[in-house]
């Protein structure tokens, strides 16, 4: 935002016949300009608003800010002139918590970072720990990891479709999305024991082998997943109002996307086929066949359609994983107390929102000396400053929804 103007004039007394203070005497004393100088930059800007401009506080209890995000919007009529996202309402200090617990415990703290795609928050941490410890993960465990995370990706994207529609005023798709989400959550609940915060990945493998309930639920769901997702998205894809509102909205070209460090579907919607599963292969992804869907437009509609294409690719991956699932143990044999050699490790995975990464420094004790988490939601949230200004307040919400940030990941 612009710098604070000189505010010498604010020291003067407000005359009592100023029309701005004659609001409602019965309701109490109301002073639009307090007698002290502005304490913050934003406060200073508040007193120097132009004609027809106003500040509006969107959040943290606003119905469509995807969690406890607060955006201070500067509006000119309905046009967004400037904005200032205010973070930190959900800060829990996850990184510091991880540094104060041993390696096994840290995984559980990584889970609630993001409550939609929890497995993707565990995975980079686990990968980094494995690099530090130089552990060989059994092949069956790698396949199960891919299976569970791809399911989680579909869960996240089906929720995204619903939220996208809800922020544009459509009431129904969110409930269709919730049905998909619920089926997958039940499935992962059968596999991992929890529906939301799975805490499933372990250093050197996964917590438990595939069980009968999971497999039967998976088979039941896979038999109709394609048609069901197709039916859910048709309600929006063929809706004139939806497409007209999304097309050409919040367009981001390649250069801007690179400059804003976008990753994941938001980058691929701008025409860059960067996917960490292919670019920096990890796990068993080199053995699996899948495409990287991209779009050239870079607008909200492209970001939405790329995610739908990704759901289809995820279904493809799940199909291959089920058919090629090897036998063997699901976790490597490791001591209970881990003391890796001093060193540092970095690991990144491709999540439903982009690059989830962890950077770990070990000092040879049983606790990580330093743990840094890279969350795509935080990086993508800075793009609202580029995308939102110049649009209407209704479009601001659509842009926000199309970037798909989750505040748990932003505030860590």
């Amino acid at each position: 935002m612009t710098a604070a103007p000189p505010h010498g004039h604010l020291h003067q007394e407000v005359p009592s016949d100023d029309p701005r203070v004659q609001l409602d005497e019965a309701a109490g004393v109301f002073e639009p300009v307090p007698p002290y100088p502005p304490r913050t930059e934003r406060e200073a800007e508040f007193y120097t608003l132009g004609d027809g401009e106003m500040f509006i506080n969107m959040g943290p209890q606003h119905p469509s800010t995807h969690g406890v995000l607060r955006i201070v919007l500067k509006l000119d009529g309905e046009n967004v002139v400037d904005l200032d996202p205010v973070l930190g309402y959900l800060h829990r200090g996850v990184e510091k918590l991880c540094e104060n617990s041993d390696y096994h415990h840290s995984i559980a703290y990584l889970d609630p970072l993001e409550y939609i795609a929890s497995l993707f928050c565990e995975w980079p941490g686990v990968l980094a720990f494995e690099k530090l410890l130089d552990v060989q993960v059994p092949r069956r465990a790698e396949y199960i990891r891919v299976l569970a995370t791809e399911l989680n990706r579909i869960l996240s994207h089906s929720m995204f479709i619903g939220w996208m529609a809800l922020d544009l005023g459509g009431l129904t798709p969110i409930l269709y999305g919730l049905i998909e989400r619920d089926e997958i959550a039940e499935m992962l609940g059968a596999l991992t024991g929890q529906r939301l915060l799975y805490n499933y990945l372990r250093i050197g493998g996964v917590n438990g082998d595939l069980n009968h309930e999971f497999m039967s639920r998976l088979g039941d769901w896979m038999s109709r997943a394609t048609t069901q997702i197709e039916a859910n998205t048709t309600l929006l894809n063929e809706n004139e109002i939806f497409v007209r509102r999304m097309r050409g909205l919040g367009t981001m070209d390649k250069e801007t996307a690179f400059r804003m460090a976008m990753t994941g579907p938001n980058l691929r919607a701008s025409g860059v086929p960067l996917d960490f599963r292919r670019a920096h292969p990890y796990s068993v992804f080199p053995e699996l066949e899948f495409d990287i869907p991209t779009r050239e437009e870079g607008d909200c509609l492209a970001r939405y359609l790329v995610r739908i294409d990704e759901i289809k690719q995820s279904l493809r991956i799940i199909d291959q994983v089920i058919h090629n699932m090897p036998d063997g143990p699901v976790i490597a044999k490791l001591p209970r107390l881990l003391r890796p050699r001093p060193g540092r490790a970095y690991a990144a995975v491709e999540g439903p929102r982009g690059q989830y990464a962890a950077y770990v420094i070990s000092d040879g004790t049983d606790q990580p000396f330093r743990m840094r988490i890279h969350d795509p939601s935080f990086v993508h949230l800075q793009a609202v400053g580029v995308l939102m200004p110049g649009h209407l307040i209704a479009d601001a919400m659509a842009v926000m929804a199309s970037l798909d940030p989750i505040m748990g990941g932003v505030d860590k």
Partner: protein
Amino acid sequence: MTAVARSWSRLTLAGKILFTVVPILLVLTAGLLLVIVLAGKPIVDFLAANMWLVRFVVAATAVLLMSVPSAFLIIYMEMKVIALMNLRIGPDRVGPFGSLLSVVHGLKVLMKEDFSPTGADRLVFTLAPVVVYMSAVMSLLVLPFAPRIFGADFNIGLLYLFAIGGLTVVGLLMGGWSSFNKYSLLGGLRSAAQVISYEIPLTLSVVGLLILAGTMSLNQLSINQSGWFTNWYVFQQPLGALIFFIAATAEANRTPFDLTEADSEIVAGFATEYSGMRFGFFFFAEYVNVFVVSGLIVTLFFGGWNAPFAWPEAWAIHLNLDPGSLGMGLLFGLLLIPPILILALAAPFYVGRSSLPWWQALIIGFVLFNLLVIVLIGGWAFISLDWVAGLLWFLLKSYVFVFIFVWMRGTLPRVRIDQLMGFAWKWLLPASLLNLFVTALAVIVISPR
């Protein structure tokens, strides 16, 4: 503390209400009796000479009393229908299939705190829901529900409806401005822009119809469309009906044009700061407006209270029941027929299921007997009384359109404000002008004076 105050404070809430209301009622009754005794004759004479006044007061009261239950019905319908479209169950706790939930909502908003935010303009803030609700109820006054069942039959009925409908926006603007909230302000200004823009195509779309019909009285318009459904104006004015439907959706602030209370953008629009019964008035007014708009579409384009078919005169059934001629037979019939029918209806259940106790079979027989009587009386009324049939047809057609509004809400996302305005000015306005010109040309060419 005096003795009176102490006794008063010991009363329960019901006692306090009773001790306040009963004396007031007693005084009022005594006063009314006194007025009737002293000046009964002149008052009755005056009322007899001015029957329109009596009729107007009765109609206004009936419409006012009717508006809240009809809003309840539409609210329940919306909750249930959207729930089914969302693959949910919807309300199912209060009453059969949750049908009393909107009544409970009504009681809830009545009991909530009467709250107005700091800095609000109290007077305007209080008056805004009243203005919105009154304009919705006043629109109901001229709708012809059935032959001879309407509040008032103006020769400018349609014009009156548009004028009253335009009053709604004043209330919304008042609410948006006086709430001292920027979201409310945005909502109020949006509603002003939207409703004023859509008034124009709304009004222009029916001008073609008025050229054809030659009257603005809604009652006369309904009479013009009697006979088979091909007489309905929708077949002569399809474009006008479409434009009217779209513009009326925007007028009633319904999805996809519900920008005034867009919950994902401007929290609840003009109603953000409202709670309790003030919000309740806004809420009820919205659903009364939905009913008014549906009724108006039906009246203008879909035949009003006419049935979609007209039997030839020879087929008409005329039931002429004259209870007087039956004499003592009627008395015996009234005494004997119910028990006999109840027993007759209960017998098959008692015989057919041996596990059924006799008293349960009797209850089933009693319920069936009542249903039978209701069906018989209803059928007789439907055949013999034209206003019963008209009312049923009118309500049926209106609720079809209410369902369409609910359906759209369950399906469509919301348009953006510039798309909304562009649609009104770039498409609806030229289309309605085209409709007007084509209709005028056709009238001149086909039926010259």
